[in-house]
C-alpha cells in the first residue's frame, strides 16, 4: 500500500481519475439494478401516472405463470448446452493451436477476429447461414424436404441459436485457454513423454489439470454471460419463435416490458434472473473454485 500511495500523493487525483468510470457504472448498472428491485414490489402503470406498492404480489403472479417457467427452463437448457460448447469448442481449438502443427500460427490470429463483431451482426449472419432455402442446409433440405427449418421447427431454431452463441464465444475463451496452455513449461510434456504418455494421455493428465484455473474462469464467465448476451442473437435470428421455443428469460423480460408494457412483471423477472445469476456464480466458486489448484 505504501508504495502505491507514494505513487499518487494527491488525495483527490485518484478519485478524479476514477470518477468517469464510477459514474458510468452507477448510472448504467447500479441504478437500473436498484430500480428493477424497487419496481418489482410496485405495480407500475403502463402509461405513467403513479405506482402502487403491492408487496410480493408481482412475484406471486410471475412465479405462477407457466410461460415464466417455460422460459426459465429454456434458459437453463441453453446455459448448459451453449456454455459448455462455448468452452469445449475453443478448448479443442486451443489445444490444436498450441501444438506446432501446420497453420497453428495464423490460426491463433484468425480465431480471435470474431471478437470484433457485434452480437446483432453475428445474429444476422447466422440467420442467413442457417436459412433453410439459401443457407448451408439448403442442399440437405432439397434431398430430405422439411429436414431443417428453424422458422417452423423449435429445435432447429434452438440449434441455430446455440451455434451462433458458441461461434461468438470462441475468441475470448480461445485466448484465455491458449494463454493457459502456452504457460505450461515444455519440459512438462517432455517428462510426460518420457513417462510413456502419448499425446492424448498428455491432454487429460497434464494439460487439462494444469489449465484448470483458466477453464474455471471461462466456465464461470460463460455460464453467467450466456444468459444475458444471447439477447442480441434471439432478437435478430428468431425473435423468440417459432411458437416461443427460443424465448429465453432475458428475451421474455424485454418482450413483457417493452412490448407488453408489463413493467412490474418485467422488473420482477429481472430481479429473479439477477438473483439466479448471482447464486449460480456463488455456487461455482463455492463448490468448484475452492478445489482448483493454482500452483504451478
Amino acid at each position, binding site marked *: 500500500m505504501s508504495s502505491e500511495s507514494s505513487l499518487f500523493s494527491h488525495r483527490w487525483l485518484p478519485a478524479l481519475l476514477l470518477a468517469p468510470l464510477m459514474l458510468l457504472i452507477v448510472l448504467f448498472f447500479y441504478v437500473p439494478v436498484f430500480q428493477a428491485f424497487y419496481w418489482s414490489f410496485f405495480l407500475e402503470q403502463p402509461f405513467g401516472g403513479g405506482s402502487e406498492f403491492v408487496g410480493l404480489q408481482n412475484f406471486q403472479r410471475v412465479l405462477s405463470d407457466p410461460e415464466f417457467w417455460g422460459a426459465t427452463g429454456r434458459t437453463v437448457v441453453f446455459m448448459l448446452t451453449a456454455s459448455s460448447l462455448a468452452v469445449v469448442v475453443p478448448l479443442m481449438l486451443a489445444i490444436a493451436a498450441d501444438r506446432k502443427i501446420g497453420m497453428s500460427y495464423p490460426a491463433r490470429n484468425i480465431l480471435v477476429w470474431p471478437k470484433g463483431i457485434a452480437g446483432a451482426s453475428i445474429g444476422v449472419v447466422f440467420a442467413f447461414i442457417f436459412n433453410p432455402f439459401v443457407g448451408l442446409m439448403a442442399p440437405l433440405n432439397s434431398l430430405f424436404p422439411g429436414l431443417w427449418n428453424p422458422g417452423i421447427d423449435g429445435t432447429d431454431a434452438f440449434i441455430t441459436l446455440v451455434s451462433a452463441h458458441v461461434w461468438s464465444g470462441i475468441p475470448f475463451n480461445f485466448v484465455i485457454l491458449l494463454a493457459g496452455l502456452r504457460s505450461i*513449461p515444455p*519440459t*512438462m510434456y*517432455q*517428462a*510426460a*513423454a*518420457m*513417462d*510413456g*504418455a*502419448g499425446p492424448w*494421455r498428455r491432454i487429460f*493428465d*497434464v494439460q487439462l*489439470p*494444469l489449465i*484448470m484455473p483458466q477453464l474455471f474462469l471461462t466456465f464461470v464467465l460463460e455460464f453467467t454471460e450466456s444468459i444475458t448476451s444471447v439477447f442480441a442473437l434471439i432478437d435478430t435470428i428468431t425473435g423468440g419463435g417459432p411458437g416461443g421455443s427460443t424465448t429465453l428469460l432475458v428475451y421474455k423480460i424485454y418482450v413483457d416490458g417493452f412490448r407488453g408494457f408489463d413493467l412490474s412483471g418485467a422488473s420482477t423477472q429481472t430481479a429473479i434472473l439477477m438473483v439466479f445469476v448471482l447464486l449460480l456464480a456463488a455456487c461455482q466458486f463455492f463448490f468448484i473454485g475452492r478445489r482448483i*489448484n493454482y*500452483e*504451478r
Partner: protein
Amino acid sequence: MTAIDLSIRAAAAEIALIGVTKSYDAKNTIIPPIDVTLRPGEFTVVLGPSGCGKSTLLQMIAGLERVSSGKIVIGGREVQDLEPKHRGCAMVFQNYALYPHMTVAENMAYSLKVAGVSKAERAERVGTVAKMLGLADYLTRKPSQLSGGQRQRVAIGRAIIREPGVLLFDEPLSNLDAQLRHDMRVELAELHRRIGATSVFVTHDQVEAMTLADRILILNKGHIEQFDTPKAIYHHPASVFVAKFIGSPPMNILEVEGDGSVLRLADGQVVANYSAKGKFQLGIRPEDIAVNEGGSIKTEIRYREDLGSHEILETKIADQNLRIAMPFGVEIDTTQTLSLSFPQARLHLFDGETGRAIANAFGDAHSAPVKEYQ
C-alpha cells in the same frame, strides 16, 4: 548408509551413437557426425560450455529430439525412430519438471500407471523408491510443498522407478545451492552404484564431471574433444580446449615458438627444451609451477588470492597471463621478483594451430600418449 534391499536394479544397456548428426537447417549444424559408445552400467558425464550441443545430444538419446541422420543403438536395438517410451530411458530434468497437480507418490508412479501396472504393485514400488531416497514421509505432499533438494529426489525417484536401462540427467543439480549440490552429488554416485543403469549426465560444471564420471565426454561445438576417465582428462588433456576447461584455476596456456632446440616466449625467455621448430602452445597447471627454486623465468606478482587451503598468484610473463597456485604455508614476499621454472615433466605441448596435444613431447612417463576415445 544402512543396507537396503536392492529391489530397484536395472539391466544396464549399452548406448552406441553411430554417425549421429543434428542440424536445424543447412547452415546451423548443432552436432556434426558423432560416433561414441557408452559401456553398459557406465556413468558418462557430457561436459561442455553452454551451446556446445550437450543437451541436444541427450535429448536425441531420449527421443525428445529427432536425429538428422545416423543411428542410435540402445541395448542392441536401433531406437532413433522410436518414441521416447519405447527406448527404455528415463530422464531427470534441470527444473525437475514434476507434475504440480500430483502428489509425490503420484508423480513417481505416473509412468507405471501409464504402463498399466496394477495399483498394488505401483504402491509397492513407490514405497521402495521412496525409502531409498528418504521420501517416505512426503508421499502425500504436492511438489510445491517440497524443498529444492526434495523435489530433485522426487524427480530421480520418478526416473528410477521403472528400473530403466538408461538414466539421463540434464543438468539436474544446477538449480540447487552449493551445499545441497555437493550432498546430491554424493547421493547420485551412491545411487548409481546401487542401480547400475547406464547413466548419461549433462553438465557444464567440471566438479560434477570429475567427481561423478567413470568417463567424461567433453563436447565443443558438437564434436568430441576428448572422451576418457577424469584422471586421464586432467593429466593428459587432448587439446587446449580441454586443458582450459578442466581444473580450477585452469591450466595456463602460453604461446611459444620453437627454434629447433628450445621453446621461447615472445620476449625471448627460454621456458623448455624442445627439438622442433614452429609455433606451439605450452600448457602448465598452476600447481605445477616451481617458485623460487632457482628458475630462470622472472616475473612480478600482480594480484594474490588467499583461498585458505592454497593461494593463487596472478602474474604475467611475456604479456601473457600466468596463474600460480601456492600450497598453504609457503611464504612469498609479494614485493619481490619471483623466479619461476616449469618442470619439464609437468609440461603439456599443443600444436600452435590445431590446439591438439602433441603426445610424448617431452619424452617422459607423465606425458604418456593420449588415448583416443572409442
